């Protein structure tokens, strides 16, 4: 059935600011808007009188069905629909088809509107894809990643964050980030952000900082927090929070052991010095007291007038000398006070701890090898004192290799019948045969800054454990200090 369109209507349709087509009941084009031609890439083509399906052979069956239904009187629309062209191009469309009627009231064909929002949709898809990618990246990050806005509200909360803090992401989105902080930060955090926004003064942004954080279960724990800021339309702060509980426990354990060892080493050095000084000074004091005593006797036997007075003065000198001796003795007693407090300790563990401390600052300069026997087990020892022995031996070994081309330190343990054997082997200058017996005496040192009491203390500790310490030659060069402890 042919329908007459006047020119005015044609022009009206052609100029319509949307994609619009009018077809007859056989789906032949009666009139189309320029926009329709533009949207579907048909610029310049004359499609009047051609069938819609001839122009768009790729129209899927589902749409053909819709058109049939519309020709039956229905008005059908879709807000978002995808149209795949035969050349692979995709159109994202909002469309509507509705029948038009002849003056006689019968259906004369269809009005087809479409709005192509492919560009927007593609941007959306790209955005969604990049967001998914970003999200996957953040979730793969082993440290907690949290983004907040300028009001401190949480915008994203990574998978590691849920594991670290115990909250789900759903619980956290929109919440104030201060719920992850213990006091006083909890109350002050809003102020921190405000102050930063007002002054631009960076206090925590940029620099990794150790702070306390709060888990959902109320536990306060240490984190290493790094904050970065970026502007994405608005200001966004990203926090990277690493749970350093285990690291801190290790650090603390090491620091405590180190402090204890230093204290023990100071006491040990003092004791060793006091013992040596007491002996060395006591000799001249004895000579002085005896000489004075002799003088007193001689004066008293003599005929001089003031013999009694002089004798009394000399006796006073003797008692002062005795007092000096007593002071030294007390100092020695004080330093000797530390008793060995033995209990069962895992030898390998103690050696690992002591090595960690002794090797601080040596990392990289010396190749360290541990050969710890698996069956070494425990021995009845004073933990601190044996660690002191180990740190002394390890530091000596490192010092001995100062000028060696090859710096290799081997720390080994082994269980033998009735004893545990601990060896510290270096590739240093070695110890000459004659020095091997002397080296344990106090004040024997070749180090300008050393007191020379380290090995004396080492031996006295090993003695107190009923153990023995041996010096062997390392092959091809260097020395091996071997400590045998009863076990």
């Amino acid at each position, binding site marked *: 059935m042919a329908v007459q369109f006047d020119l005015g209507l044609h022009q009206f349709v052609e100029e319509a600011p949307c994609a619009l087509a009018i077809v007859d009941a056989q789906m032949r084009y009666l009139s189309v808007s320029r926009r329709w031609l533009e949207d579907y890439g048909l610029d310049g083509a004359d499609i009047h009188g051609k069938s819609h399906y001839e122009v768009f052979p790729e129209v899927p069956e589902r749409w053909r069905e819709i058109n049939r239904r519309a020709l039956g009187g229905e008005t059908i629309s879709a807000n978002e629909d995808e149209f795949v062209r035969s050349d692979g191009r995709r159109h994202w469309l909002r469309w509507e088809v509705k029948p038009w009627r002849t003056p006689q009231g019968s259906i004369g064909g269809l009005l087809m509107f479409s709005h192509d929002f492919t560009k927007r949709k593609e941007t959306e898809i790209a955005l969604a894809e990049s967001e998914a990618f970003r999200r996957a990246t953040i979730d793969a990050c082993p440290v907690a990643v949290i983004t907040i806005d300028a009001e401190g509200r949480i915008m994203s909360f990574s998978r590691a964050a849920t594991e670290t803090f115990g909250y789900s992401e759903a619980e956290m989105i929109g919440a104030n980030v201060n719920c992850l902080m213990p006091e006083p930060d909890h109350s002050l955090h809003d102020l921190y952000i405000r102050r930063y926004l007002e002054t631009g003064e960076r206090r925590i942004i940029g620099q990794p900082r150790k702070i306390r954080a709060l888990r959902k279960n109320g536990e306060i724990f240490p984190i290493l927090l790094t904050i970065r800021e970026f502007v994405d339309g608005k200001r966004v702060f990203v926090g990277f929070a690493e749970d350093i509980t285990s690291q801190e426990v290790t650090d603390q354990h090491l620091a405590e052991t180190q402090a204890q060892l230093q204290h023990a080493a100071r006491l040990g050095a003092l004791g060793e010095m006091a013992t040596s000084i007491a002996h060395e000074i006591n000799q*001249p004091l*004895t*000579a*002085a*007291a005896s000489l004075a*005593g*002799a*003088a007193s006797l001689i004066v008293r*036997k003599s005929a001089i007038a003031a013999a009694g007075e002089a004798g009394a003065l000399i006796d006073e000198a003797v008692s002062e000398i005795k007092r000096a*001796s007593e002071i030294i003795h007390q100092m020695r007693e004080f330093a000797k006070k530390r008793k060995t407090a033995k209990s069962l300790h895992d030898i390998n563990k103690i050696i690992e701890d002591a090595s960690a401390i002794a090797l601080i600052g040596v990392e990289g300069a010396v190749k360290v090898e541990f050969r710890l026997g698996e069956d070494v087990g425990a021995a009845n020892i004073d933990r601190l004192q044996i660690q002191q022995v180990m740190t002394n031996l390890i530091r000596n070994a490192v010092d001995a290799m100062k000028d060696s081309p090859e710096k290799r330190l081997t720390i080994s343990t082994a269980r033998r019948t009735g004893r545990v054997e601990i060896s510290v082997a270096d590739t240093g200058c070695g110890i000459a045969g004659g020095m091997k017996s002397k080296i344990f005496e106090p004040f024997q040192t070749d180090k300008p800054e050393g007191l020379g009491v380290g090995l004396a203390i080492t031996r006295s500790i090993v003695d107190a454990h009923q153990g023995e310490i041996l010096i062997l030659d390392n092959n091809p060069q260097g020395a091996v200090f071997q400590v045998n402890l009863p076990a």
Partner: protein
Amino acid sequence: MRGRVYLIDDDAAVLRGVGALLAAANYRPTAFGSAESFLDAVPDLDRAQAVVLVDVCMPGMQGPQLLRKLVEIGVAVPVIIMTAHGDIQMAVNAMRDGAVDFLEKPFSADELTSALDRALSAAASNEPRAFDAPGEYRRRFEALTPREREVLAEIVDGRSSKAVARDLGLSPRTVEVHRRNIMAKVEASSFAELVRMTVLTSMASEAPTKGD
């Protein structure tokens, strides 16, 4: 001349000083710089009215080793050990090894002469172990209460009053009181004498059980 004193010490100043004191106090001292040089000279030495005064700690042969050596070669000269001040354990060990007495360095003229005279008179009466009359000491020690004995055992081990107080669950002041009472009861004039008396008494009472 009160007696011969063979003085052995590795420190030249000590030899000189103690030698001068001995001479001034009318003894006849002979000085040796080591136990070895003394042992070399022993065959030619006059052992009558003689005492060996030897330092406990010397390079080479030490005082206690010399003691054992003298016993081994049958030289019956009383030996007095000189110890560092406060080294009670060393003194106790030396006495168990056969020293007749010990002197804490530095010592006064009185401390030295009374120790020497005691040793000489005991040697003269040919009772090397009897000069201190352990029987008499034992009678005095028997007057001690069980608590005083506990305190005595600890302080003779060289422990401080504070440590003794901690070990026995007493206050340091109480330990001090016990200590003074002990000294008074056994009539010890000094701590060194208390140690000496304790060691001699315990050796005398150990002897029968050991001599089986």
